[in-house]
C-alpha cells in the first residue's frame, strides 16, 4: 500500500517547504474547517474517531500493518512493542471513554454543541457552551506517538483545524493516523495537516505560528521556551515539559504468586515503549520486609525482562545510546564488585537489551532508559519520597502496587507530595483518555466558554 499525497509529510524527502506553502496550508485548513468541521456534532465526531480506532485494532487494518512494517526501521521500536502500544492507545478511544472525558472536562457530553446546563447550573439558572480554537498547531516531540495522537484526537473532538509539526524523521505514526482519518472521512482529513522539519526553522515556524490560535508542544524546557518565544501574545500555549516517573511497591504483597504478578506488571512498565515516555519508570522503590526482598525482586525482574526480550524484543539502538548503557553498566559492575551488599546488577547477555540495577542508596536516579531500570530498597513510602525529593514537582506518574486497604492513604500521601497521576503498577504507560496531562485539564485548557446567565 502506498500512501496518497494528502499531507506535506507525504512529499518526497527532497521537497523543500517554504513559508508560503505553510501559510497556504493554514488558510486551506481554516476554510475546510469552516466548511466541514465547524458544525459537526460531537456525537458524529466521537463515532468517527471510535470507528477509526476500532479499525486500528484489527490485524488486517492497512494503516496498522504499515505502522508495524515501517515502524521498526523508522521509530526504533520493535514490531511487538509497536503492536502493544497501538493496542493500548486505540483501545482507549471508545464512545464510552469519550463520553466520560466530555463529562469530566465540560460537565456535559453536549457542551461543545449547544448551550446546556448541569442540574447544579440549572438551579442557578445558568447555561454555557464551550468553544474550541479555530486552529490548533501541535509541535510533536520525536519519541512516542501517544502525546501527538492524543492532541490530534482532542483537536478533532473540539472541531479545530490542526497542523501537526513533527520532528524530522518522526512523522510516520502521526501521518498514518492522519491518513486513517482521511480515509474514514475525507472531510475531516481535509482539516488536518501533517508536516515534518527539523525544529528551529524560524521562517516556517513563524508562518505557522502567525496563524495559530492555540499551540501545544511537548519536549525539553528549552524546546518549549523556544516555541513560546515565537508565539504572538494572544496565542494560547500549552507546553508539556519533560517529566519523570517511578514506582512504589509495598512489602505486604511481595510473596509467592502475588510477587510474581507484581514483577510481571513492573516488567510491563519497563518494556512499554521501551521506557521512553515521561510516564515510564526510572526507578522502582521496593519496600523491605516482604517475603521477597528488594534484591530478590530485582533478580526476578531481570529474569522477567529476559523473557520479555524473547517475546517483545527491545530492538536495535544507535551506537551512542547503546554506549550510554554499556558505560553505565560498567560503573555498576565496579560498584557491585566492591560493595555487593549495597549494589547488584543484572544485564542481558551479549546485548544492552535490558539492565536491572539494585541499590540500597535511595536517591532517585535518572535511568538511561531503553529498559534500564533501578530497583531501590526503602523502609517505606516516606523513605522513597525522601529519595525522590530532587525530582519533586517534576513527577508525572507514580505506579503503585500496595494492599487495597492502604491504597487511599498512600495515594493521598503521593498527591500531597506532588505526583499528578497515581496508577496501578503495570499501567504507567497506559493512561486513560481522561488523563489530565501533567495535572492540567485534558480538554479544559483548549476551550473558551460562553456563559449564559438567565433571568
Amino acid at each position, binding site marked *: 500500500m502506498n500512501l496518497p499525497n494528502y499531507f506535506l509529510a507525504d512529499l518526497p524527502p527532497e521537497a523543500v517547504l517554504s513559508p508560503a506553502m505553510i501559510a497556504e496550508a493554514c488558510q486551506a485548513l481554516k476554510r475546510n474547517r469552516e466548511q466541514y468541521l465547524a458544525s459537526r456534532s460531537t456525537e458524529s465526531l466521537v463515532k468517527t474517531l471510535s470507528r477509526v480506532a476500532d479499525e486500528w485494532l484489527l490485524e488486517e487494518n492497512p494503516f496498522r500493518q504499515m505502522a508495524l512494517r515501517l515502524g521498526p526501521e523508522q521509530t526504533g521500536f520493535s514490531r511487538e512493542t509497536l503492536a502493544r502500544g497501538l493496542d493500548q492507545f486505540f483501545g482507549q478511544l471508545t464512545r464510552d471513554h469519550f463520553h466520560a472525558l466530555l463529562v469530566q472536562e465540560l460537565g456535559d457530553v453536549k457542551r461543545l454543541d449547544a448551550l446546556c446546563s448541569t442540574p447544579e447550573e440549572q438551579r442557578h439558572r445558568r447555561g454555557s457552551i464551550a468553544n474550541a480554537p479555530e486552529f490548533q498547531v501541535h509541535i510533536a516531540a520525536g519519541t512516542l506517538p501517544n502525546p501527538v495522537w492524543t492532541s490530534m484526537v482532542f483537536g478533532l473532538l473540539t472541531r479545530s483545524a490542526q497542523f501537526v509539526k513533527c520532528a524530522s524523521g518522526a512523522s510516520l505514526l502521526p501521518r498514518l493516523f492522519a491518513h486513517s482519518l482521511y480515509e474514514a472521512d475525507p472531510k475531516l482529513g481535509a482539516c488536518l495537516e501533517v508536516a515534518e522539519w527539523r525544529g528551529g526553522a524560524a521562517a516556517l515556524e513563524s508562518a505557522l505560528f502567525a496563524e495559530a490560535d492555540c499551540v501545544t508542544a511537548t519536549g525539553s524546557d528549552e524546546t518549549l521556551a523556544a516555541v513560546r518565544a515565537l508565539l504572538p501574545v494572544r496565542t494560547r500555549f500549552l507546553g508539556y515539559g519533560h517529566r519523570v516517573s517511578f514506582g512504589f511497591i509495598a512489602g505486604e504483597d511481595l510473596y509467592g504468586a502475588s510477587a510474581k504478578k507484581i514483577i510481571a506488571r513492573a516488567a510491563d512498565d519497563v518494556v512499554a515503549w521501551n521506557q521512553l515516555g515521561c510516564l515510564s519508570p526510572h526507578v522502582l522503590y521496593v519496600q523491605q520486609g516482604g517475603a521477597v526482598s528488594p534484591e530478590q525482586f530485582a533478580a526476578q525482574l531481570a529474569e522477567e525482562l529476559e523473557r520479555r526480550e524473547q517475546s517483545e524484543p527491545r530492538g536495535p539502538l544507535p551506537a551512542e545510546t547503546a554506549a550510554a548503557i554499556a558505560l553505565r553498566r560498567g*560503573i555498576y559492575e*565496579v560498584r557491585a564488585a566492591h560493595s555487593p551488599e549495597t549494589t547488584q546488577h543484572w544485564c542481558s547477555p551479549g546485548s544492552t537489551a535490558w539492565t536491572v540495577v539494585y541499590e540500597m542508596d535511595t536517591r532517585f536516579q535518572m535511568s538511561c532508559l531503553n529498559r534500564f531500570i533501578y530497583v531501590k530498597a526503602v523502609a517505606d513510602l516516606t523513605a522513597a519520597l525522601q529519595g525522590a525529593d*530532587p525530582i519533586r514537582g517534576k513527577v508525572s506518574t507514580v505506579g503503585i502496587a500496595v494492599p487495597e486497604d492502604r491504597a487511599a492513604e498512600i495515594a493521598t500521601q503521593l498527591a500531597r507530595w506532588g505526583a499528578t497521576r497515581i496508577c496501578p503498577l503495570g499501567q504507567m504507560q497506559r493512561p486513560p483518555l481522561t488523563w489530565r496531562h501533567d495535572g492540567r485539564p485534558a480538554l479544559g485548557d483548549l476551550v473558551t466558554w460562553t456563559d449564559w446567565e438567565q433571568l
Partner: protein
Amino acid sequence: MRAGCRGKPALKKHRMNHPLSSFAARLRAEIARPPAAPGLPPFPELALELFALQFQHNAAYRRICEARGVTPSGVLHWTQIPAVPAAAFKELELTSLAPEERTAVFHSSGTTGQTPGRHFHGPESLALYEASLWSGFESNVTGHSGAGSAASRLLILTPPPAQVPHSSLVHMFETVRRKRGGASLPARPPEYFGNTTAAGVWTMDFEAIVEALSEKADGASSPPQLLLGTAFSFVHLVDYLAEKNRQFVLPPGSRVMETGGYKNRSRTMPKSQLHALLTDRLGIPPENILCEYGMSELSSQAYDTPGAHSERLFHFPPWARVQILSPETGREVGVGETGLVRVFDLANVFSVAAVQTEDLALRHPDGFSLMGRAPLAEPRGCSLLTI
C-alpha cells in the same frame, strides 16, 4: 579526561626490586631505545605479564577482575584482560602505590561538583609518563629531526603547573617545556599564557598572546612558533583574533597542538572549522595543526597523523593499543563501524593498563577517528539532576 600534579616532596624510597618497578624500568628503556637496538618482547606478551602483576598488586583492580571471574591464568590474549571504566577512577583508588608512595595525582576534568577521577603517581610512574609523552610529542609534533624545535618559541595556552598541579595535560606541557631546555633558560620570555580564576576557571591573557605572536611574526629569520593548548582555548583565541581583526602569518615550521573536547567551556565548533580558522588567523597550514587524544587516566597519548589514505587518524605509540568495541555486544567492531574506545596502555604500570573510555570512535583499517563522547554516561549526583 584530564584536569590538573601535585608536588609532595618526592620520596626516596627504592622500589626497584619490586616487579612493577622493574617492568616500568624496562618499558622506559624500550621507549628510549634506538630503533635498531634489541627490544622487549612483543606487546601481547608484555600485556599479559603486566596484567598478572597488576592483578597481584592492585587490590581494587583485582576485585573487579575476580567479580568477573577473570584471573591471569585464564587469560590467553591481551584482548581478554578486563578493562576498568574511566569513571571508576572517581570511585576507587585504582593504584598499586601505597599512600606514602604517591607523590602526585592527576584529576580528570569532570563536571563541577563531582568527585574527579584520580590517577596517582609516584616518581617511577611519573618518569614513565614523561618518557612516554615526550616520545609521542617528538615523533608527532616536533618531528624526530628536532630541526628548529629547540629554537622555536613555545606558547602554552594553559595556566602554569603551579596553578593547576592536578592537570596531567599541563604536566605534559611542562615536561615538553623542560625537555626542550625551557628550565635551563630562565631569560626566556613567558611561555604560559593561561591563568586560573578564583573559581578555578581557565582563562588566557589574549593581549600577551597577540604580543608574542606579533614579535615573532616579522621576517623570515624568526624562529617558528609552537602553540600548545586545549581545543577550547584555541576556539577562544580565534574568536579573540576575529574580534580584534588580527591575522598572522607565523614563520614556516610553526605548529599548533590541540587536545581534548570542548567540555562546554566555549561554543562548540567542528574540528575542521577550528582548524580552518587557525590556518586563517595564524597562517599555519593544516598539516602543521596536530590533534592529541589523551586523558588523565592514561600515560600515553594518541596523535592524529596521516593514515594510508591520507586522512588523519589517531594512533597510539607501540606500547599502547586501542580497540573499538561495540557498545551493544562488547566485541570489537568491524572497520567502518562506530564503537567505544578501549585503550591498553603499558605505560600505566602502577594503575591499570586496560581503560575503557567514554569516547566513541570510528574504526579504520589503520587507526581511529573520534566521534565524540557518549551522552549521559554517568549516573548523576542528585544535586546535578536535570530533567
